[in-house]
C-alpha cells in the first residue's frame, strides 16, 4: 500500500477514529485503525466492538492495499506534523511496518494484519431517512445532560430516540432521564422515519455523533434497526449498537396538572442559582426557592459553611410556594434555554416540576424537587 494525503484531511479522519478506540485495551487489534486505500480514496475504520466509525478521505493512491496501525500513535504523529504537509503512508507487503513520511520526518509503525480487524456485520435497517444536521444536533444536545451514569439502570445510559405522538402530529423524539431529571425534545418527523423502532442510543455514541454534526442543514442519513443505528455524512459513517433494554414509560412522570406558573429570565436565573450555591460544598447542593407575588428568593443554607440569599424579579401570581432543588440540576435545565424566558410549572414542594422555553412544548424538562 502506498497512499498520500494532505495533513489536515488526514488529521480529521484519524481523530474521529482514535476517539472511538478504547484507551485501555486488552485486545491489541482494537487499538488499531484499519486503513484501506483504493480508487483515489483512503478509508479509516475504527471500532470498540459497539461503535464503528468509517471515515473516507480523498487521497493519491499509488498502490492500493490495506493495513492496521495503532490509532492513537498515528493521530499523535499527524497532529504534530506541520500544517499543509503531504503525508505518505507506505507498507511494503510482509514488512509488518507502516512508514509515515512527511517532509523530512520519517516514522516506522508496527502493523497488525487487516484480516484480524473486526468489521461490524452489515444489517437490515427498518427505517432509512434523512435528517438535517442542526435538527439532530438540537435533539441530542438538549437531552444528553440527563443521561444516567448508573450502571444498574443500564437502560437509562442513553438517549431514547423514537417516534411519538406530539401535539401537532407525529414527531421524532429524544428522551433522556436519570431518575432525577428528564429531558424530552421533539422535532418534525422526517419522511421515512415512520417505521423506525424506538432505540436507546448509548452515551458514547451520542458523543461521537455530536462530532459529525455541524450547526447547518447538511443532510445526515439515518438508519435504524432494533439493534443498531447508523448516522452518515458524505465522508463519515458512524454505526452503533443500541442499548438492549426497555426504556421506562416516561409519559407518566411528565406532570400535566401543574398550574403554578413562574416566568423568569433564564440567564439571570442561572447566574443567581450559581451565585447562591457557592457557599455550599456538598455533593448535592440544595437551593431553596421561595415564591411570592412576582418575587423569587433563592437561598442556600449550609450549616457547616455558610448561607446565601438572592432576590429575583419574576412573573408569578399564584399562592406562596417553598420548594427545593439540587443546584446542579437547576443550572443544567436553565442553560438549555437560549431564546425566550424560562417557564416553570410547579404543583407542590414534593411533586415533579416542569420547565420549558416560553410556550414552546417541543422541548420540556422535568426535575424532581429535593427536601429542604
Amino acid at each position: 500500500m502506498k497512499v498520500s494525503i494532505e495533513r489536515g484531511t488526514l488529521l480529521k479522519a484519524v481523530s474521529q477514529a482514535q476517539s472511538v478506540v478504547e484507551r485501555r485495551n486488552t485486545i491489541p487489534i482494537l487499538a488499531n485503525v484499519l486503513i484501506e486505500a483504493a480508487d483515489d480514496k483512503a478509508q479509516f475504520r475504527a471500532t470498540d466492538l459497539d461503535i464503528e466509525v468509517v471515515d473516507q478521505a480523498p487521497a493519491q493512491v499509488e498502490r492500493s492495499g490495506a493495513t492496521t496501525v495503532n490509532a492513537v500513535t498515528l493521530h499523535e504523529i499527524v497532529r504534530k506534523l506541520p500544517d499543509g504537509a503531504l503525508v505518505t503512508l507506505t507498507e511494503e507487503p510482509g514488512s509488518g511496518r507502516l512508514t509515515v513520511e512527511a517532509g523530512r520526518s520519517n516514522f516506522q509503525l508496527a502493523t497488525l494484519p487487516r484480516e484480524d480487524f473486526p468489521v461490524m456485520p452489515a444489517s437490515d435497517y427498518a427505517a432509512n431517512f434523512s435528517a438535517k444536521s442542526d435538527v439532530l444536533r438540537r435533539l441530542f444536545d438538549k437531552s444528553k445532560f440527563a443521561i444516567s451514569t448508573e450502571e444498574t439502570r443500564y437502560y437509562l445510559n442513553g438517549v431514547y430516540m423514537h417516534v411519538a405522538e406530539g401535539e401537532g402530529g407525529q414527531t421524532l423524539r429524544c428522551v433522556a432521564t436519570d431518575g432525577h431529571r428528564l429531558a424530552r425534545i421533539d422535532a418534525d418527523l422526517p419522511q421515512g422515519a415512520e417505521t423506525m423502532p424506538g432505540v436507546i442510543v448509548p452515551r458514547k455514541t451520542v458523543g461521537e455523533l455530536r462530532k459529525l454534526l455541524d450547526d447547518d442543514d447538511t443532510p445526515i442519513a439515518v438508519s435504524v434497526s432494533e439493534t443498531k443505528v447508523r448516522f452518515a455524512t458524505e465522508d463519515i459513517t458512524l454505526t452503533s449498537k443500541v442499548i438492549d433494554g426497555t426504556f421506562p414509560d416516561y409519559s407518566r412522570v411528565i406532570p400535566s396538572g401543574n398550574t403554578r406558573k413562574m416566568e423568569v429570565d433564564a440567564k439571570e436565573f442561572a447566574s443567581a442559582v450559581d451565585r447562591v450555591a457557592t457557599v455550599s460544598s456538598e455533593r448535592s447542593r440544595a437551593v431553596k426557592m421561595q415564591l411570592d407575588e412576582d418575587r423569587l428568593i433563592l437561598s442556600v443554607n449550609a450549616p457547616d459553611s455558610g448561607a446565601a440569599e438572592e432576590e429575583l424579579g419574576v412573573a408569578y401570581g399564584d399562592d406562596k410556594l417553598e420548594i427545593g432543588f439540587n443546584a446542579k440540576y437547576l443550572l443544567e435545565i436553565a442553560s438549555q434555554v437560549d431564546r425566550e424566558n424560562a417557564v416553570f410549572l410547579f404543583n407542590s414542594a414534593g411533586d415533579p416540576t416542569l420547565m420549558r422555553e416560553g410556550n414552546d412544548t417541543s422541548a420540556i424538562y422535568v426535575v424532581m424537587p429535593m427536601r429542604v
Partner: protein
Amino acid sequence: MLSHPELFDLSIAHMDCDAFYASVEKRDNPELADKPVIIGGGRRGVVSTACYVARIRGVRSAMPMFQALQKCPEAVIIKPRMEEYAKASRAIRAMMEELTPDIEPLSLDEAFLDLTGTARLHGAPPAVMLARLVKRMSDELGLTGSIGLSHNKFLAKVASDLDKPRGFSVIGKAETDAFLRDRPVSLIWGVGQVTRDALGQAGIRTFADLLRWNRADLSARFGSMGDRLWHLARGQDRRRVSAHAPVKSISNETTFHEDTSDWHVLDGHLWRMCEKVADRAKAKGIAGRVVVLKLKRRDFSLISRRQSLRDPTQLADTLYRTARGLFDQVGDEGPYRLLGAGLSDLVPEARADLTPDLLDPEANQRARAERATDEIRAKFGSDAILKGRAIR
C-alpha cells in the same frame, strides 16, 4: 508481681475481658464452672466465645459449630444472652470511666483507655489504676480481664493478648523494636488471610522483613495500607484513643440453618437483614451512600457486591431494592450458607433521602409507609407490623 523500667510512664492501655460471654455464663451458673462452655447460635452457627476449658480442647472463636463439637463433643452450648452481656459491659464501662474519660470501646468486652495525665488526679500512675480496675472487675462483677499497657494503641492491643487470661503485659518504648522483630505480621489488627498472603508474596512474614522495605515501595505495593505498615514496623501508631470513633459502616448478616438457593427464602432473609440495618441507621441518626451485599457459598467462598446511591439512604425499602438488584446480578451461584446486607460511606440523616426518584413515583408512598410502620413498632413492639416477605 510485675516490674518494668517504664511501668509508670506508659499510659495507653487496652483492656480485654477473658472469654467474656462464657465468663458471664459461668458466673451466673456455677455448675458450669469447670465444664467446657461454648457460646454460639445453633447447630449451623459459629462459635462466638469459648471458655478456656474449651479452648484447651482446640475450640476457637469464629470456628463453625460442627467443627467445635468434633473437637469437644461434651461442650455445653449456650445461646448468647446479649442483654446480660450488655449489662456486664455497662458495669465495666462505668468502672473505666472512673479512671479516664478517654475510652474507646471496640466491642462489649474490650476497650482502649488513654490514662495520660491522670496520675495526679488519682494519686497513682496508670499501671496501678489499671491493676485496681481488673481487681474490682473480679471482686464486684466476677469477671476477669487482661490488660496491655504501652505507648500506643497498636502495642497496647498486642500486649493485652500476650498473657491471657488475667494478664498484665507491658511493652515499653525501649524494647519495642526487639519485641516486634521476630513476630509475624499477622499480629497487626486488620491483617487477615488475604493481606497475609499478599505480604507473603512480597517476602514479608515478620516485622524484620517489613523493616527492610522503604516507605515508598511499601506504599506503591500496598497502597494506604503500606504507609501504615511502615509505621507499625517501627512500633509507631499515632491513632488517638477516641471516645467517638466514627462508625464506618452498618451491616447485618445471618448464617442459615441449612444451605439454600431457594429464591423466596433468600429474599425473605435479605429483607430482614435490610430492615435490621435500616433500624440501626435510624437509631443512630445516620444514612449510607453505598449498599453492600454479601453472600457466602457452601464452600465458604465469598461474594461481595456494592453499589453507590446518588442519594444516601436510611430506608429499608431503598436498601432492599438496591441489594435485591445486586442479588439479581450475582445470579444463580448458590446454594448459600450466609447472607448479609450493609450500608457504608455514612452521612448524617439530614442529608439522606432528599430527592425522590422520578421514575418510581410510588417510592415516596413506600417511604411514608415505612416511617409510619416505624412509629407503630416503636409503640407496640417490633413484631406489631411486618412485611409479608419478612415471614418467608
